[in-house]
C-alpha cells in the first residue's frame, strides 16, 4: 500500500467546492433524471426473473423461482434483497424499480462529482464529463431497466472513492469502506468478486514499484479480511441453502465445445458488426469512452493520489470488460458494460488538460466549451433517441403480447398449473404460474441446465401449457430441440394448438401456445386469446372487409 502523498489539507482554494461546483452537480443531476425519464419504461424480460425471486422471498417462499424449489437462477443477490424489501413495503416492483435505479444513479453521480473535485483546476471542467455520464445512452437505459446495473455502477464508484481516501490518508475507516464496497460488489454481481482483489493487487504493485514499502499493508489486510469474511460466510450459506457450488446459469452454458470462443465471436459480431434485431452496435461507443479515458490517464503526469485512482479505474474497466467478453450479451446497448461508464468517465476528466485555458475563462460560451457542450448534447440526444427506439420495441412486446398472454393464462388454467416456456421473464411473472424453463440454456431449471433439454424430461413434468418461441406467425421456424418436442408423437397426442401471439415485428417472432388435452377451455376464453404485436387487424381476415371500410 502506498504512503499518503497528499492530504486533504493540501487542497487549494480553487479545489474546494464552491457554488459553481454545486451548480455543475445540480445541472448534471437534472439532465440525468431527464434522460432516465425519457427512456422509461424499459423493463427487459430478465428483470422479471429478479422480481419473481424478490416477491417469492418476501412472501416467505425463500429464494426460489417456483415456490418451494430453492434455486440460484439469479445473478444479483443484493438486488433481489433490495427488491424483496421494497415489495415487502407494499411497492409494485415493475412500477418502482426504475425510480430506485434513478436514485442510485444520482448517488453515483454524486460520488463521481466528489472524485472529480480533486481532479479539476476549474469548476467548468466538471461540466463536460458529468454531462457525458448523465446522458450516456446505454448507462441510462440500464439505470431504468429494473436491473442491478445502477447499483453495481454506484458500488464501483464507491470502491474507487474509498481507494482514493486510502491513498490520501490511510485510515482504518477508509480501509473498512474499501472492504465493504468490495463485498457488496461481490454480492451484487458474480464477477464483482474479482474487483477488490484486483484493486488491492494493483495498489500493492504500485506501492512496491515506487519503493513505498509496506506501510499500508496492514490496512489492506483489514479490507481483505472484511471482504473474505463476508464473502466466505455468504458462500457457505449459499452452498448450504442451494446445495450447489455454481448458480444454474453457469451450468447451462456448456452446450458448446468451445463456449468462450463462441462467446467472443458472437460478442464481437454483436458489439461491432450488427446489433441484434433493430439495434445499433454499441462497441464503438464504449471503445471511444475507453480511448478518451486512456488519453486522460496519459495526461496525468503527476504521481498524485487522483492519478493512481484514475489508473485503477481504467484497469478495473478493462478487467471487467475482459470478463464480459466471455458471456454472450444480446441486450441493447451492452447490458453488462453499462456500469463501466462511471469507471471510464473518471479518468476522462483529465483529458481536458489538452484544452486551452481560454475554455475555462469568464465567458466559456464564447470559447470551445460552448461548442463542445452543444456537440455532446446533440450526440447524446442521438444516442438516447436511438435507444428509445429499441426500448420501445421491448415495451410494445410486453404491452401487446407478454402481459396479455400471461393474463389470459391466469384466466384459463388453474393456479397450480405448470407453464413450459423459454422466456421466463414477464409471462411467468404476470401469470404467476409455476414455470419450467425449456430454453436450451435453461436459467431456472437445474436438470436442463445440467443435462440438457430432453423431450422425455419435459413430457414427464406434464406442463399444462407449452409455449414455443419461434420465428413466424403463420409458419414456424424454431429451435431444433423444441421442434423435436413439437413433432413427438406423445406431444401431438397430449397437446392441442391454441394459437400464435407475435411479440416482435422483426422476423415475425411469435409464441406458439399449446395446451394439455386435460385442460378444458371455455369458448369465450378462446375468443379472448391475445393477438400480439400489430395483429389488431388479424381478426376478420379479409381484404373485402377492409374495402368495405370495416
Amino acid at each position, binding site marked *: 500500500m502506498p504512503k499518503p502523498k497528499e492530504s486533504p489539507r493540501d487542497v487549494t482554494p480553487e479545489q474546494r467546492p464552491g457554488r459553481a461546483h454545486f451548480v455543475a452537480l445540480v445541472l448534471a443531476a437534472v439532465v440525468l433524471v431527464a434522460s432516465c425519464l425519457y427512456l422509461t419504461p424499459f423493463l427487459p424480460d430478465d428483470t422479471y426473473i429478479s422480481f419473481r425471486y424478490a416477491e417469492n422471498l418476501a412472501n416467505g417462499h425463500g429464494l426460489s423461482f417456483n415456490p418451494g424449489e430453492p434455486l440460484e437462477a439469479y445473478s444479483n443477490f443484493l438486488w433481489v434483497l433490495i427488491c424483496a424489501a421494497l415489495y415487502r413495503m407494499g411497492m409494485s416492483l415493475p412500477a418502482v424499480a426504475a425510480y430506485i435505479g434513478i436514485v442510485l444513479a444520482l448517488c453515483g453521480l454524486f460520488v463521481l462529482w466528489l472524485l472529480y473535485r480533486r481532479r479539476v483546476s476549474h469548476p467548468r471542467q466538471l461540466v463536460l464529463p458529468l454531462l457525458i455520464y448523465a446522458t450516456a445512452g446505454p448507462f441510462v437505459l440500464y439505470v431504468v431497466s429494473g436491473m442491478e446495473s445502477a447499483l453495481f455502477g454506484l458500488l464501483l464508484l464507491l470502491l474507487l472513492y474509498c481507494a482514493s481516501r486510502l491513498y490520501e490518508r490511510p485510515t482504518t475507516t477508509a480501509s473498512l469502506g474499501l472492504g465493504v464496497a468490495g463485498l457488496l460488489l461481490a454480492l451484487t454481481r458474480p464477477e464483482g468478486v474479482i474487483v477488490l482483489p484486483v484493486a488491492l493487487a494493483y495498489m500493492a504493485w504500485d506501492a512496491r514499484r515506487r519503493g513505498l514499502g509496506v506501510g499500508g499493508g496492514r490496512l489492506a489486510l483489514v479490507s481483505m479480511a472484511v471482504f473474505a469474511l463476508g464473502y466466505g460466510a455468504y458462500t457457505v450459506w449459499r452452498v448450504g441453502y442451494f446445495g450447489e457450488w455454481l448458480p444454474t446459469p453457469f451450468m447451462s452454458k456448456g452446450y458448446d465445445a468451445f463456449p468462450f470462443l463462441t462467446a467472443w465471436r458472437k460478442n464481437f459480431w454483436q458489439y461491432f458488426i450488427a446489433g441484434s434485431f433493430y439495434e445499433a*452496435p454499441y462497441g464503438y461507443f464504449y471503445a471511444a469512452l475507453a480511448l478518451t479515458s486512456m488519453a486522460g490517464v496519459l*495526461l496525468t503526469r503527476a504521481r498524485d493520489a487522483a492519478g493512481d485512482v484514475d489508473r485503477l479505474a481504467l484497469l478495473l474497466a478493462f478487467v471487467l470488460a475482459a470478463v464480459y467478453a466471455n458471456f454472450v450479451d444480446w441486450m441493447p446497448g451492452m447490458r453488462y458494460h453499462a456500469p463501466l461508464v462511471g469507471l471510464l468517465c473518471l479518468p476522462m476528466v483529465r483529458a481536458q488538460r*489538452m484544452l486551452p485555458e481560454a475554455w475555462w475563462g469568464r465567458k466559456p460560451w464564447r470559447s470551445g466549451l460552448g461548442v463542445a457542450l452543444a456537440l455532446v448534447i446533440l450526440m447524446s440526444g442521438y444516442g438516447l*433517441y436511438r435507444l428509445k427506439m429499441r426500448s420501445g420495441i421491448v415495451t410494445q412486446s410486453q404491452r401487446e403480447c407478454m402481459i396479455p398472454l400471461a393474463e389470459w393464462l391466469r384466466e384459463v388454467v388453474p393456479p397450480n398449473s405448470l407453464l413450459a416456456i423459454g422466456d421466463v421473464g414477464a409471462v411467468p411473472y404476470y401469470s404467476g404460474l409455476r414455470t419450467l424453463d425449456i430454453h436450451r440454456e435453461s436459467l431456472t431449471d437445474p436438470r436442463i441446465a445440467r443435462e440438457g433439454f430432453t423431450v422425455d424430461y419435459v413430457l414427464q413434468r406434464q406442463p399444462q401449457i407449452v409455449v414455443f418461441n419461434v420465428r413466424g406467425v403463420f409458419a414456424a421456424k424454431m429451435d431444433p430441440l423444441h421442434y423435436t418436442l413439437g413433432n413427438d408423437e406423445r406431444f401431438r397426442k397430449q397437446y392441442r394448438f391454441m394459437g400464435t401471439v407475435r411479440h416482435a415485428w422483426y422476423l415475425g417472432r411469435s409464441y406458439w401456445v399449446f395446451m394439455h388435452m386435460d385442460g378444458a377451455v371455455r369458448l369465450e376464453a378462446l375468443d379472448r386469446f391475445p393477438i400480439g404485436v400489430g395483429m389488431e387487424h388479424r381478426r376478420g381476415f379479409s381484404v373485402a372487409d377492409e374495402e368495405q371500410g370495416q
Partner: protein
Amino acid sequence: MTARTKLWSVIAALALLVVLALWTGPVPTESAYVSYGYARNLAAGHGLVFNAGDSPTEGYPSLLWVWVCAAMFAAGLDAPGVAPYLSLLLGALCVVLLFDLLRRRAEHGAQWVAPLLLFASSAALVMVSMTGADAPLFSLLLLGCAWSLDRIAQRPSPVLVALLALAAVLAIVCRFEGVVAATAVAVLLPRVVRARGRRHALAAVGVIAVAAILYHGWRVATFGAFVPDFVILHLGVNDGVFQHLQPFDTVPFGALYLIVAILAAVGFKLGRRSAGERFGVTVALLLGMLYLVMEDPTPGLSNHAALLALAIVPWPHVHRALLGSSNQPIERPRRVGQSLLIAAVLLIGIGLTADNRGTIQRFQESHLETLRPLGEWLADWRSNLTLATDRPGALSYFANGKTLDLRERSRLGAAEPDRARALAAAAPDVILLAARGQTKIIYDPDTERFRGTLRGYYFVAALRMAWSHDRSVILHARNDIPPPENTHDTFPHGIGLPFFGYESERPE
C-alpha cells in the same frame, strides 16, 4: 508532416471509405431506379421519357446522372449493377479533393487528418457512395467549385477559371438546385480574381449565365414547367431529419448534420473565410434549408449527404481556434493523448456508419426479396404489361412495362393530375399499392381514392417488403386477366416467408 505521411493518410482515408462501402453493399433507392428507367429509355432512343412512347417528363433527380447511366446502357453495361461502384469512385474523388482543401487550411497534420478520416468513414458518404445515384457526383462538382475558387484566389489562371466554369455548368445540369451553386460562383468569382484575371472571370460568369439560361429554357420548352416533376413530387416536410420516418425504421440523422453545421459555422467564423469557404458555407446553408422541405426517405439523408464535404472544409479553423495553435512541438504524452482522442471520435463516426448499415440492410432486404423479384415476375408474366403503382422505382424498372405513377402530384405515366381519374382511364393490367398487413390489408389514407377502380380488379397476393408493421406490396390484377398457371410455384415469397409449414432452424 512529410509528403509520404500525407500520401499514406489519404490512402488510409480512401481505404476506410472503400472497406466501409463494400461492407455496406449497394443501397437500392427508389429514385436511383427511376433514373435507370429514364436512362434505359434514352439509350434505346425513346428520349427523356418515363415510359417509352409517353411525352417527356422530368421525374429524374439529375439529368447529368441520367446521361451517365444512359452511356452505360449504350455501352452494354447493366447500369443498376455498375452505377454503385461508379458512385464509390466519385465518393473517393471527393475524399481526394477534400484532402487538398483541408491541408491548405491546416497548420499541422492533426488539423486535417481527423476531418478527412471522419468524412471518409461517415455514414453519409458511405451510404451515398453505394446508392448508384447522383449525390456523389453533385458533391464532387460542389467541391470542385470550392477548390477552384480557392486556387483562383491564390493564383488566377485561365485554366482554373475554365475548370470552375465547367464545374458550375455541370452542377446546373446535374440538379435543379445546382443553379444556387452556379449563382454563388458567379457572385464570388469576380471578387477573388485580381485585375489581370478579371477578363477571364467575367467570361466565365457569362458562360455560366448563358448555360443556365439555355438549359432552363430548353427544360421549360421540353417539359412545359420550370420546376421539375421530381422536385414537385418530393416537396413536403423532411421528417427524416429530426425523427425516424416510421417507428423503428431509420435513425435520426438530423442531430448529426446539426453537429456538422455547428462546426462549419464556428470554423467559418473563426477562419480566414476564403472564397472556397464562402462558397461552401453559403451553398451548404441554402441547399440544406431547401432539403428540409424535400422528402428524403434514404437512411442517412442522401440530399444532405451531398453537402457534407462542403461543410467540413472550414473544420481545421475550429481545431486551431478552439484547441489552440500548436506549431511548437508538443510533448509525447500530449501528442499520444490527442491521437487517442482523434481515434475516439473516429470510432464514434464508424459506429454511426455501422448503425446506418443496419437500416440500409432493411432497404436491401426489401429490394432483393420483394421489389426486384416481384418486378421480374411481372415481366415474365406479360411482356407488354401495364401497371400502376405508388412504388415506381425498382418495381417498374424490373417489370419493364408501361407504368402509371400513383403518387400524389406525379405526372409520370399520364399528364392527368388527378391520379384516380388517370388510373380509371389507363385501366392498367395490374395495380400495386403499398399497405400494411399481410392477411387483412390496411391501405394508406392516400390510397382511398383508388378504391373505386380496384373493384374491377381481383386480389392476387400481398408481399411483405418490411418487417415493421408488415408493410407489404398488394398486387391486384384486372378481372379479365387470368393469373399464370404456375403462380403458386413461381410467385415470389417476399420478406420472411421462404418456407411454408413447420421447420427447425439452427439456434442463434
